[in-house]
């Protein structure tokens, strides 16, 4: 029946001291063995309800993502009635997202809303009264119910997705008509290719809103980078200290990354303190750029910190190349004469036109409020690009990305002389992916559309 293994963050979206990632399904114990390393990396045995201490491992470089507790369950003695594991780790959304990613990379599927409860229900673990509530949840898979059952944003999303899907069904009907009735030269596959291209653009547009969707859900991610000893950590602590939301300092195990969630102007902001972007003598600047780029890629905004006494250096330039939207802060303003500092500031502003270049002192607190104002402005700026439809759900984002990939393939196939029947399959997969966001299926829809749009037959 249900044979795949699902994973999800089991604790809520707000940061808390402890977060839980749950995995259920036949492969859950195997997944645990893949992504969990016990203390001293010693071999371990899984036993019902027996807690183990260790770390979650990032498979790409075998480094630890976070310390964690592993709690295994054996079917049918679990919430879902299947084999399960639960990982308890630190509650930062960033950490939890990475643990979930590790589980997905190890072969799990992202769980759909309510799927754990649904599985519990399927295995007869819930009674009839509980079942009734779940039935409503399952019923919301239909597009119409989604509109009423979920908030306005989801309603707008399913409208947008349905719009794209309709466009694709129409393109698919064109392709199918040309396949079934090749004598009638009315089905224009160029027209279909163009329509698929437009749909792809719309899908990509929606997919991009997930950047903002994540901000809404998890907070705006601000990474602080710069050379060693420019006062990054002091600045991090100063900004965090003034705006502390929930104190959850998480010592990075090997990564030298510290995160803290604060509130600024009504927005949740996650500050990330990075280890100094080091620049050992003799190593080319490219290495610095790569590292800055990695940090920038995981953040919504980068703050490049320099020393107010010496201004920007070659490494900082490298960082700025990697993070074009970065905010520049010259720290330690208390240790330098105002005119000297102003010279550094104007030089930086002249070199990096259009960027905010701010001076501050983490030590005295001067200039911090101007940094905060700049951050709030940036966040408001992001908001303005959104016309109302945003993707906040990871599963939706991943279905959109799947749909985009299939459409890209279809267009490539159609323009490179690949078989139409293969391109039609790609488009079907894309409509499946979109349909799984709103809860509809494909086959009959296509046939109906063929006949309503084309004059086909003998």
């Amino acid at each position: 029946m249900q044979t795949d293994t699902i994973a999800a963050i089991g604790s809520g979206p707000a940061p808390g001291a402890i977060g839980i990632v749950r995995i259920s399904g036949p492969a859950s114990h195997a997944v645990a063995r893949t992504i969990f390393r016990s203390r001293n990396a010693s071999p371990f045995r899984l036993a019902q309800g027996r807690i183990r201490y260790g770390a979650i491992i990032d498979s790409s470089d075998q480094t630890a993502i976070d310390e964690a507790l592993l709690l295994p369950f054996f079917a049918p003695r679990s919430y879902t009635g299947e084999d399960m594991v639960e990982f308890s780790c630190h509650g930062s959304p960033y950490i939890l997202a990475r643990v979930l990613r590790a589980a997905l990379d190890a072969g799990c599927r992202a769980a759909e809303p309510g799927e754990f409860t649904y599985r519990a229900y399927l295995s007869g673990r819930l009674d009839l009264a509980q079942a009734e509530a779940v039935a409503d949840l399952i019923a919301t898979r239909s597009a119409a119910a989604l509109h009423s059952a979920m908030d306005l944003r989801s309603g707008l999303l399913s409208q947008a997705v349905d719009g794209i899907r309709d466009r694709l069904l129409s393109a698919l009907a064109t392709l199918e008509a040309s396949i079934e009735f090749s004598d009638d030269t009315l089905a224009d596959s160029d027209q279909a290719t163009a329509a698929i291209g437009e749909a792809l653009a719309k899908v990509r547009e929606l997919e991009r809103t997930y950047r903002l969707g994540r901000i809404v859900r998890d907070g705006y991610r601000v990474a602080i980078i710069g050379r060693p000893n420019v006062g990054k950590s002091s600045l991090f602590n100063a900004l965090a200290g003034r705006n502390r939301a929930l104190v959850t300092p998480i010592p990075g195990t090997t990564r030298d990354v510290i995160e803290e969630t604060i509130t600024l102007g009504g927005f949740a902001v996650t500050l990330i303190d990075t280890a100094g972007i080091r620049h050992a003598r003799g190593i080319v600047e490219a290495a610095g750029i790569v590292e800055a780029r990695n940090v920038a890629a995981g953040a919504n905004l980068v703050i490049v910190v320099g020393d107010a006494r010496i201004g920007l250096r070659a490494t900082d330039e490298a960082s700025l190349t990697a993070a074009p939207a970065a905010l520049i802060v010259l720290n330690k303003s208390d240790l330098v004469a105002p005119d000297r500092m102003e010279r550094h500031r104007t030089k930086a502003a002249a070199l990096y036109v259009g960027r905010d270049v701010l001076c501050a002192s983490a030590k005295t607190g001067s200039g911090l409020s101007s940094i905060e104002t700049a951050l709030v402005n940036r966040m408001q700026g992001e908001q303005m690009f959104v016309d109302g439809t945003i993707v906040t759900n990871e599963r939706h984002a991943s279905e959109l990305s799947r749909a985009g990939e299939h459409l890209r393939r279809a267009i490539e196939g159609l323009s490179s002389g690949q078989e139409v029947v293969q391109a039609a399959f790609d488009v079907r997969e894309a409509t499946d992916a979109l349909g799984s966001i709103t809860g509809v299926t494909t086959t009959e829809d296509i046939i109906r559309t063929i006949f309503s749009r084309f004059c086909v037959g003998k």
Partner: protein
Amino acid sequence: MNPSHNYGDTRLHEPQDTMPEAFDVIVVGAGHAGCEAALAAARLGREVLVLTLPGTRIAHMACNCSIGGPAKGHLVREIDALGGSMGRAVDETVTHIRYVGTSKGHAIRTLRAQVDKDEYSEAMARILTLAERLTVRTAEAAAPLTGADGEVLGVRLSDGSEIRCTALVLTTGTYLNGLLHCGDEQTPGGCFDAPAVASLSRALADLGLQLGRFKTGTTPRVDRDSIDWSEVTRIDSEETEPFSYLNGRLNRPAPALPCWQTRTNRATHDVIVRNLHRSALYGGRIEGIGPRYCPSIEDKVVRFAERDSHPIFLELEYRDHPSVYVQGMSTSMPADVQIEMLRTIPGLRDVRMLRPGYAVEYDMVFPDQLRPSLEVRTLPGLFLAGQINGTSGYEEAAAQGLVAGINAARRCRGLPAVIFDRKESYIGVLIDDLVTRGLEEPYRMLTARAERRLSLRHDNADRRLTPLAVDIGMAEPERARRLERKLQAIDRERTRLSRIVFYQRDLPEAWRRTDPAAPEGIRAIDLLRRPDVRYEWIRERNPPPEDIDSDVGEALAIDARYEGYVARQDQRTARLFAHANTPIPSEIDYGAIYGISRASADRLTRLRPLDVAQASRIPGVTPADVQMLMIHLRRATAARHPESEP
């Protein structure tokens, strides 16, 4: 109509007058469904009687003279792979044949043939004559005879006499209450020059079956010698492989006859619009529902008013008779309007019309009353196949006939029905759609209906279905031998091709791998994945030790090229059919399932799906209903095996 022979009459058998007559299987109707049903049942060892109406012909092609095309050609190949006869009859009588769908992909590519209609009837009659245990008689069936539980006991004829049987297969085509429309003239009849049957319709309704009324149309026939050839485009026949696997894979010389293409124009459309009130369809005289995919020319002009032109194909119906079928001109206009319409078309300005087109309305039985074996759910032993189930097309009819014949024979021997899986054949898709989804209009097979379209191909119907035919006794020894040889040859050649390596430098520029990390050599089997590499290219440079049939290389090339897509398609199919292995017990009470909607419970009660996947394909049954059903089944299982509970 055509002057030649009438086989229905020549095969009259006198009943023995002493014993009450009995057969294992009686087939009513000798059209495309009836012939396959009777031949299948006879091959499986049953004594079979075929009843054909007076004045009708065996395997008559009442509409066009074409067999095949996308999805339909696939059906013919599947029928053949299962030991059916349609493909062989086509091969014997073909007058024009081409590959179609080649540019759309290997999964679509198939044959479309035109045959001589008289020769086709004769060929099928000959096959019936040669079949053992098979009797043909001219008589009109009036009603099934049934026992207390609805089980079939035999059939009553219109003269009041009765014949006993264990299984009865009805393949009545358009004859049930058939009504022909030509403009404002209406004539009872099953098709041109043939009578209609009323009593059988009534009898089926009396047995509690729900009947509907469908409509189909045909085109005018014109005289070949009145066509101006300078104004039409000639399309020549091609050299192709035969339809039937029994006739080998070698290309045969192109048959003699061409066909021609022309187009309607504004003037044609003006004539139609001006006379719309005289059309039977638009004059409101037809109540039956017509197919969307085979619209009349009136329909096309009204529904697609923005189009100036529709394609018309001119097809010769006979080798030695000048009758030309005007494909694309299906109509129910009066004869004088039809002539006026025709004469606006290039090539037809001075055309002589031999016979006007007409529409036919007929009774059908809603097929969601059938099991996937094509047996009526409430009347054990009664099987329905062909147009009576609401389908259109010779190929769709023949496919159902074959399945009904096989299962009628198996019923006689107490064997379980053979159910065709929609994942494995177009026949499976066809029957599952009919019995699960129900119909609102005549059903035509389309490749788009098959979830596993990339795997259900013209070239591999034998690999898919002949093993089943061998298992159930449908395959001739020669057919089984041919498949065995082909599978071995494919295997050997695949092994050989995975050992042959071509150096990059020996390949044409376009096929070379450009990335610097690419290995120096490419295996021949991998080269085949490229859409622009043909098996023949490899064969020329590196011929196999013994000569192999052309379809072996073709099979390898298609398998290689489709590998990635087939894998993705099968993942998708697995998602769609996730619950196929959860059977539903036949005694289930849908009304007692918690949380299922009333409407869904009613539908499920009526259709009695065999498994949860089939239930989920029923229109109107929601995913939530399916989940409730699953819970119910799980709980029922748990209740029966309490020790498995924690």
